[in-house]
């Protein structure tokens, strides 16, 4: 981690409140879970058995149900994605963009892992 990032994180931490939603171990490698965060349903995905975690809205706008955390994690080209468990559209984990319909953009959340804790902020 570079000095700049550390600085930014420190600033963020000072400006915003980061909340622990679960432990890293609660998310099995290459799967997702759903967390309740400030009244919203957030899907958290862990890449492999690393501490890389992504957070996007849990609501599948095409299936109209709160299910995205239960999709399969994978890649399309260079992009990390989740496939909706209902009708299999792909959502970019980093940007929330739907690959099949770029007008559809899911809300993304800032996420970090500190000492095995998963935090949203």
């Amino acid at each position: 981690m570079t000095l700049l990032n550390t600085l930014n994180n420190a600033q963020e931490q000072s400006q915003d409140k980061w909340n622990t939603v679960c432990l890293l171990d609660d998310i099995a490698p290459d799967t997702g879970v759903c967390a309740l965060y400030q009244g919203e349903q957030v899907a958290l995905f862990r890449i492999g058995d690393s501490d890389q975690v992504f957070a996007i809205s849990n609501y599948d706008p095409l299936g109209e149900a709160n299910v995205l955390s239960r999709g399969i994690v994978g890649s399309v080209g260079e992009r990390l994605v989740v496939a909706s468990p209902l009708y299999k559209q792909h959502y970019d984990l980093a940007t929330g963009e739907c690959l099949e319909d770029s007008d559809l953009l899911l809300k993304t959340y800032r996420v970090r892992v500190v000492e095995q804790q998963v935090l949203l902020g």
Partner: protein
Amino acid sequence: MSKKRIIVVGNGMVGHNFINTLATSENSSEFELVTFSEEPRLAYDRVQLSKYFSGYTAADLALTTADDYERQGVVFTLNDKVVAINSHEKTITTASGRKEGYDKLVLATGSYPFVPPIPGKDQDHCLVYRTIEDLEAISASAAVSKTGVVVGGGLLGLEAANALKQAGLETHVVEFAPRLMAVQLDEGGGQLLRRKIEDLGVTVHTEKNTKEIVVGQECRYRMNFADGSFLETDMILFSAGIRPQDELARQFGLDLGERGGIVINDYCQTSDEDIYAIGECALWDNKIFGLVAPGYQMAKVSAAHIVSSLITHEEPALAFKGADMSTKLKLLGVDVASIGDAHGHTAGSQSYVFNDDIAEVYKRLIVSADGKKLLGAVLVGEAEAYGTLLQLMLNDMDIPGNPAALILPAVDGEASVGLGVAALPETAQICSCFDVTKGDLAAAVQGGCCTMGDIKDATKASTGCGGCSALVKQVMDAELVALGVEVNNNLCEHFAYTRAELADIIRVKGYTTFAQVLQGHGKGHGCEICKPTVGSVLASFHNEYILKDEHIGLQDTNDIFLGNMQKDGTYSIVPRIAGGEITPDKLIVLGEIAKEYDLYTKITGGQRIDLFGAQLHELPQIWERLVAAGFETGHAYGKSLRTVKSCVGSTWCRYGVLDSVSMAIALENRYKGLRAPHKIKFAVSGCTRECAEAQSKDIGVIATEKGWNLYVCGNGGMRPRHADLFATELDDETLIKTIDRVLMFYVRTADRLQRTSVWMENLEGGLDYLREVVVDDKLGICSELEDAMTRVVSTYQCEWKTTLENPEKLKRFQHFINADEDDSNLLYVRERGQRRPATATERIELVNLSSVQN
């Protein structure tokens, strides 16, 4: 303009083909199609008639149904023979006295079996072989006979002998000529065919002229031959050739040939221009064509002529120019083919003969005087070269290289000499049953067909006798290559392999995790296609708990929570109810649980009970109760064995011959948990009434008095397919062994999400090949397949029981990882006493209502 009325007399294969041609043509709305048949049923496949004795039913043989005809607007009358034609009034009259007018009349009356005028031929148990009714009579006679004789050693006679043998009789064939199939085969071919048939237990008597049929001493009858010898038998089947059914034409003044047959011109018109004759009743250029392909060709020509003369008034585009009588078939399991001038009658012709007494193969080529053109061929014992040789002859092509190479067996390492399909002209007819040319196939490929299944759907090629399937595939592949289509069977962007290839890799390398497979043979991160596929293959071979840490990320929508996700994200629960048998106590438990959790309850098509609307956190609670009551997971969520449906069978049913319920339960318990390329459904029926509908299943088992008949690769659903009869009269042990092998071979070789029906359609060599692998053990892998299945059976676990014993795994079964709340998005309404998800409109009303109340 009123519709033109076409009356078709006779609803056999050719009459039906004519109707189908007009009914599916672009001018179909211009015609009213009316047909009469003296038989009690609509058209059926007479070519496959002997299959009636190996378990096929009349429905299996049917070429159409009353529903199909009604949908096509075809008016049909069965059991009513047309007995008079008035060509001035243009009307016909039937036996029941109905009178109908026509614009065009088509005679498709077929032929009748010729019975030689032998004294004693009209007694009971002296029968012919032509219709399903004849077969019923043969069946009834065989039941009270021990010995049967077929008079006639031609193509149909040998078919009939097969039928008698299958009916369990000691079978004899009596032939007037010095050899079998004298029309199609030469001396050498006829001799080998005789030897092979006699090896199968059918006794052949040649050069026998039957003088009379009298009362026998050992058997019911004695046949006395002109040479003084005799043969005793309980029944006699005459199959001494056919005669055109031209009685109607004879009575009402149409021109006939000297030896019968309704004379037609190149457009299939008789001497009355508004009356056509097609099929075996028609005589063209003084020839009767006793095969189905020329009959279909006449149907096509006459239909085109009727359209042009009544509707378009253009010059007719098609004409009948005679037909090639080459034929290839399997007689009593022996491959026999005859092409063109099989006897070498052409002046100056020469021949090549290959004769292998050990392997029992005989091949003879007839070539032109200069050795460049193929004129004819005879193949007995092995007929793979048929397609190639036929094309060489039909297209008058130069023989590539040394003609002898065409019939010599391939030496190791060298491919046998074939015919590059590229050399064939566009007009080359590849499928003679449905007259599909190379050009038609190429057009279909250009239109998007890229599998055998697509091609069959689009062109019908290879859906008749199937003899051309290898050639069709070659033409298709060549065309795909010509179009620059790289046939890409890659599973997805992460793996440049098919599912079958990945399965081989995993098996040979002994991989146990997705990570190993991806690292060794893939790229990227995987996806929702390759992950479940590899997960399924790993499960098929190793059968580990699918929610293990290294497998959980591979599981598809339903497997990952061991339930079936519904549209609102809740799950349905289907406990296993093997064979559909359930105790009242267990039913009560299901009822209590459903009531307590307010689960929508429905009976499934597979004889079990589906409970809908359980939320994630409720799944373990519900399964705790189900497992305690003795239920197991039903794998309704998996690409795996679903159910083995059964009828009640011999334990209760008045008609049942075997205990279908016990067999269904045994099969379901054996194969439960087997992960496969797609879901698998079974059924077991306790008698041939088939109440369990086994012929629409991947694996169907039907009880007979002599054991189980096994059907494979059927399907209901989106693309229904009748299962193929695979093996008959099996005992319990052989049945299970055979199913083990078929299923494991399917698991190893099928594509992703390929049901057994499509797998079969795309399997090169089809049913025969599957039989060679599974029954004859051609690949030497049967014991390996059985071992693999034994491993799966012995490592079975109820996934829900295992999950309940793992508190770590249960943590995932809640909607929020950090809260106990439910998903607030779920809204239901009640209908017929149960709940269901609210529709979009209902949701708006419900939300408004609750905000008003708040």
